[in-house]
């Protein structure tokens, strides 16, 4: 409880946590409040917002309910963002731990591969990956993870380099533990905190990358995404700009919420560290 209170000390953290909570509620409530296919026609096309209270945010070019799409889009954005970030952190932590713990040639090879991934623009890589393998939710998650694991890998490696000299690692060697067991059971868990501190930045980047991919038409065609909604609205930008603007505002608020909550989290843990 006190941990939560410590986290919710700054107004920024409260704002971030409230936005994220609202979003999670939206994502979970989407199938309950708007059952059925959000891509189905619900009314006349291009109905402006706040005119018909059964369709509060109006309809798009094809007569689909914008509010229902917004709710279902929250689900996709959150699911893809969290899954891709988790995958990126996992790959990064494993690669970083292996490189840092093994050292020598393995370290050299793994870090050059990391360099190569950092040299190629991440978005281009994700774009190529999705366009070659074909757009589906899983492929989009993999593509985003592929372009985001290098940061965590570098941080994990740096942390492992200092941890592997500790006495308890030497102790584990003495009792004859297998090096891989030491790396993943003794070293990796202790190297995780600084890696996890990156998570808010990575979740935010993943949500933005997913939005950009689906804006370019490379999202899962069977899912409503905010990026796809913006692209849809773009075709009628002159006459109905709200169709692009509304999902964009949802995106900005989401990413802002992730950043603010992340800053609050880092601050609360930093203070605890300095007190002890």
């Amino acid at each position: 409880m006190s941990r939560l209170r410590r986290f919710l000390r700054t107004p920024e953290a409260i704002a971030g946590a409230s936005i994220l909570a609202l979003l999670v509620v939206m994502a979970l409530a989407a199938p309950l409040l708007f059952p059925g296919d959000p891509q189905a026609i619900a009314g006349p096309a291009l109905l402006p917002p706040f005119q018909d209270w059964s369709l509060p945010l109006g309809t798009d070019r094809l007569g689909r309910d914008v509010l229902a799409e917004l709710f279902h889009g929250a689900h996709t954005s959150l699911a893809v963002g969290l899954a891709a970030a988790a995958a990126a952190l996992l790959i990064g932590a494993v690669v970083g731990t292996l490189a840092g713990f093994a050292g020598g040639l393995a370290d050299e090879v793994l870090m050059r591969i990391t360099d190569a991934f950092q040299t190629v623009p991440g978005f281009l890589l994700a774009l190529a990956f999705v366009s070659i393998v074909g757009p589906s939710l899983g492929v989009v998650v993999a593509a985003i993870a592929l372009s985001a694991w290098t940061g965590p890998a570098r941080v994990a490696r740096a942390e492992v380099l200092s941890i592997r000299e500790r006495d308890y690692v030497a102790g584990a060697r003495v009792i004859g533990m297998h090096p891989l067991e030491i790396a993943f059971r003794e070293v990796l868990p202790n190297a995780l905190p600084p890696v996890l501190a990156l998570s808010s930045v990575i979740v935010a980047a993943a949500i933005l990358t997913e939005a950009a991919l689906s804006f370019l038409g490379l999202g899962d065609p069977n899912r409503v995404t905010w990026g796809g909604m913006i692209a849809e609205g773009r075709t009628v930008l002159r006459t109905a700009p709200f169709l692009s603007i509304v999902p964009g505002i949802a995106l900005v608020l989401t990413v802002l919420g992730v950043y603010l909550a992340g800053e609050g989290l880092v601050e609360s843990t930093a203070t605890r560290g300095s007190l002890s």
Partner: protein
Amino acid sequence: MTRALTILRRRLVGSVFVLLIVVIGSFLLLEAAPGDAVDAYIVSTGGDAGMIELLRHRWGLDQSELTRLANYLWALLHFDLGQSVTFSRPIRDVILERLPTTLLLMGSATALSFGLGSALGIYAGAAPGSLRDRFLSIGSLALYAVPGFWLGLVLIVFFAVDLRWLPIGGIETIASAKTGLARAADIATHLVLPVSALGFIYLALYLRMMRAGMAEAWRQDFVLAARARGLPRRRIVLAHVARNALLPLVTMLGLQSAQMLGGSVVIESVFAVPGLGRLAQEAVAGRDTPLLLGIILVSAVLVIVINLLVDLTYAFLDPRVGAGEASA
């Protein structure tokens, strides 16, 4: 001069390995793509099974994977990126045609974000914790949360559709037959919106870095010494605090170049700017995998070159960099 050469040599050796990995990676992606160059060719020209067999043999596609990788590398060494299916032209020529536009867009956006971002960062970092600092910190965070393509659309709605101040897209007025300065001015007005959309996102990054670096520098002894000497506050802020916070921003310029290239893909397609990013989108739309991978390779080379230039600038700004290796 020897310092520059040392840095150059060390970076080039590393870059060769990195590029080799990128090439092998893109070769594997090319292999994973459904269909090959012959399939793509046959789709547009037509032909029977015997023709396909003949072409596969002639283009070396019936050989083992290792041989094909060797052929691919050999062609790359001669700057041959293969043939584009959608454009029916050598990929190298198509890319070189589009590259200057993207460089212009990226260069202008970088100048905007770096210049304005560090200036606002100095303004915020001059008084850490003040009201304006808090305001700028929150504002930059909000700006950093904005997707570039959406900012581009909003700018279009306001400045091109409602106010009609600026053109809605493209790089210059089509068939205007403008030359010299008139043409430059025309291109500049077309670039205002895309450069803003791309630059404003990264502005936040430089602002935050500058501010954080200055907040750190205020606690250093040399700032205390400068204050004790009774230097004017303005001079302390600019010559002592901001100056020391500026160096990491230069490194960020290089690190950011890859991200900005990625960002220009969406921005260019929003504003119909005929650059490398839009070419990537056209390659995706036309299922032109070799072209897409050619763009990735050229981007990787571009990122390496930019980082090399940044390293050299850094060495010029900070005499300690590379000095150790040069004397050893």
